[in-house]
């Protein structure tokens, strides 16, 4: 049994799940405690090995490979749990003809499948069997029966494991890493949808980090009012000193995001990221634009514009500035961080640099995030070069990881 479990763990690792030795030992202990009835075995292993629910389908797929329903088992399994047969048939039907063929071949080549294990088979480690038998007590016969089933399954499983690389299921961790490093330009709509969750998680982490930084910054001068207030609880003796934060307060955030086709994915993810962190800021205002400006909010990970926004228009940054300046100049101040995401491709329309200078004069900090590779900046209709000198930083962000770190550094 131990060998089969180790094989199972190895298979999970090969598919990208991280399973530590400690977790493997937990799994062995869990199986010894819970027994090997198929569904209980499945849950016992899942409880100890699957630490992220997104990995559950991958786990189930691997479970079906290493612990397949063997024929004799099928009727028993069906009796025990009614949902069972449907489950197996669906898992057999899912991954395509090659795998099904291989499985068929093996069970077909087998009168061996129902005969006792061949002489070449390694003997089951005795101490594991004994320990498990002890813990199982009266149900010992069932145990040995199950071991026989498992052993029968081994050759089948080996073949499937080797061919299994074709299975499409990847672990949640691997998928997340892939999304973080995926260039915005190459993202499909479904990638963006998945990446929204990742962006929101990044935003939540950012928010936690900012809040912590603020707490730790309370090391400055004595805050007399709060100290005296706390001292009333201890009879006027100031047992605990309260201190003031060193740097004043939280910044205001203003974000301007270009939603036109070429950079839409990046903008959407930035908005998701900021939405998760927005309540930390003293005030957070987010705008999207193509050729007109529109205040937006994010709900359920979807960008919701407050007015109408023509996504197919040609982007016009000058006109957006002309919209922004008279109406929203009030939100800018010395404590404002202005984040702009866009490629500054203005379609040869007037860039209105004068307005940009006016905004610069009122704003504490301006960071421009460019989701375009640096060599392409200022080529064609890009007017980034006109705006860049007024910015505190212009950062190239080609993927989600770069975007998140740029926002972190900007704060």
């Amino acid at each position, binding site marked *: 049994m131990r060998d089969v479990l180790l094989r199972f763990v190895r298979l999970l690792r090969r598919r990208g799940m991280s399973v530590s030795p400690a977790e493997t030992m937990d799994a062995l*202990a869990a199986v010894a*405690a819970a027994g090997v009835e198929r569904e*209980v075995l499945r*849950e*016992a292993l899942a409880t100890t090995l699957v630490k992220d629910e997104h990995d*559950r389908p991958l786990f189930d797929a691997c479970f079906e490979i290493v612990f397949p329903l063997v024929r004799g088992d099928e009727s028993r399994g069906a009796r025990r749990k009614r949902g069972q047969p449907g489950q197996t048939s669906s898992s057999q039907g899912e991954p395509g003809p090659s795998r099904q063929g291989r499985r068929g071949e093996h069970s077909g080549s087998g009168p061996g499948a129902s005969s006792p294990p061949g002489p070449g088979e390694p003997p089951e480690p005795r101490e594991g069997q004994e320990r498990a038998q002890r813990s199982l007590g009266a149900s010992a016969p069932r145990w040995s029966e199950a071991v026989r089933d498992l052993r029968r399954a081994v050759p089948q499983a080996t073949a499937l494991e080797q061919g299994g690389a074709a299975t499409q299921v990847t672990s949640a961790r691997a998928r997340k890493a892939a999304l973080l490093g995926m260039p915005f330009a190459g993202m499909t709509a479904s990638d963006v949808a998945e990446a929204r969750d990742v962006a929101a998680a990044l935003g939540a982490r950012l928010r*936690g980090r900012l809040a912590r930084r603020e707490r730790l910054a309370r090391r400055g001068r004595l805050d007399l009012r709060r100290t005296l207030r706390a001292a009333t609880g*201890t009879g006027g003796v100031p047992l605990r000193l309260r201190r003031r934060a060193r740097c004043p307060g939280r910044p205001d955030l203003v974000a301007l995001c270009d939603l036109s086709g070429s950079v839409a994915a990046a903008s959407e993810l930035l908005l998701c990221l900021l939405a998760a962190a927005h309540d930390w800021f003293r005030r957070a205002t987010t705008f999207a634009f193509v050729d007109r400006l529109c205040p937006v909010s994010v709900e*359920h990970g979807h960008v919701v514009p407050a007015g109408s926004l023509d996504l197919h228009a040609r982007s016009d940054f000058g006109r957006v500035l002309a919209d922004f300046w008279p109406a929203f100049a009030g939100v800018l101040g010395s404590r404002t961080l202005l984040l702009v995401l866009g490629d500054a491709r203005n379609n040869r329309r007037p860039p209105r640099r004068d307005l940009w200078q006016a905004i610069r004069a009122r704003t504490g900090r301006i960071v421009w995030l460019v989701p375009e590779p640096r060599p392409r900046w200022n080529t064609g209709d890009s007017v980034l070069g006109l705006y860049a000198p007024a910015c505190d930083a212009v950062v190239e962000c080609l993927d989600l990881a770069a975007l998140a770190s740029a926002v972190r550094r900007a704060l």
Partner: protein
Amino acid sequence: MEITRETVREGLRAARYITTPRVETALFLTLVLEKPLLAEGPAGAGKTELGKVLAELLHTDLLRLQCYEGLDESRALFEWNYQKQLLRIQAERAAGHGWAETAHDVFSREFLLERPLLKAITAPRKVVLLVDEIDKADPEFEAFLLEVLSDFQVSIPELGTLTATHRPVVVLTSNRTRELGEALLRRCLHLWVDFPGPEKEAEIVALKVPGIDEQLATQVARFMASLRKLELRKVPSIAETLDWARGLCALGIATLDAATVRQTLSLLLKHEDDRRAVDAKVTTLLGSSAGR
């Protein structure tokens, strides 16, 4: 009590907690392997209830530690009772005692305010420790918690090391508002608690709302199942299902129809946008839930 899967199942039934084999297995393993159990899942799916049910199953006390941002050791583990210490110091001074004996007195168990973690460690019998919404606490606290959970002992500089005589059963819950550290995940058993299927939910309603018509319970559960498939700002939890069922009972309603659902929707949905969105779809929702 010897712990087997059967006793766990019986215990859960006795505690009136309706559940799946998945949850049963996880609880059984938590008790047998003596490892912390991390329950994750949507809000209101019954995670916190797990701790309470475990306490009832073991006939023991439940200690609850509610996590929040900025939770620190003094709130979770222990704190000296400054006020009391101060009083003692003043009294001793009036009686003319020296500092040496005062100091000895003042830093004793009597002046220690035990918070849930320390209470769980010093408890005279096995207790259930419920660490609720661990995802709300800061990563530092998580690391600190790991240290306590790994060997169940705490060092207090003035008192020495306190070790648990009975290892508490630990249940952690999380809504996944942030990702937990790998180290914590590695040390815990993991359980995903999801909303129950319509059959289970009907059972729960029938059990928790005495006097409800069986048919109405089924209808309610089916409606909830299709409601949860919609994209809502706040998905209604089991508690809300029960509130609704109780409300329907109080109104003396025997079968659900579109009009009654519309009237009582405010029991289920807490956001005006949600209410408006569902209001428009009530008939289809009722239809789809009746059809299955």
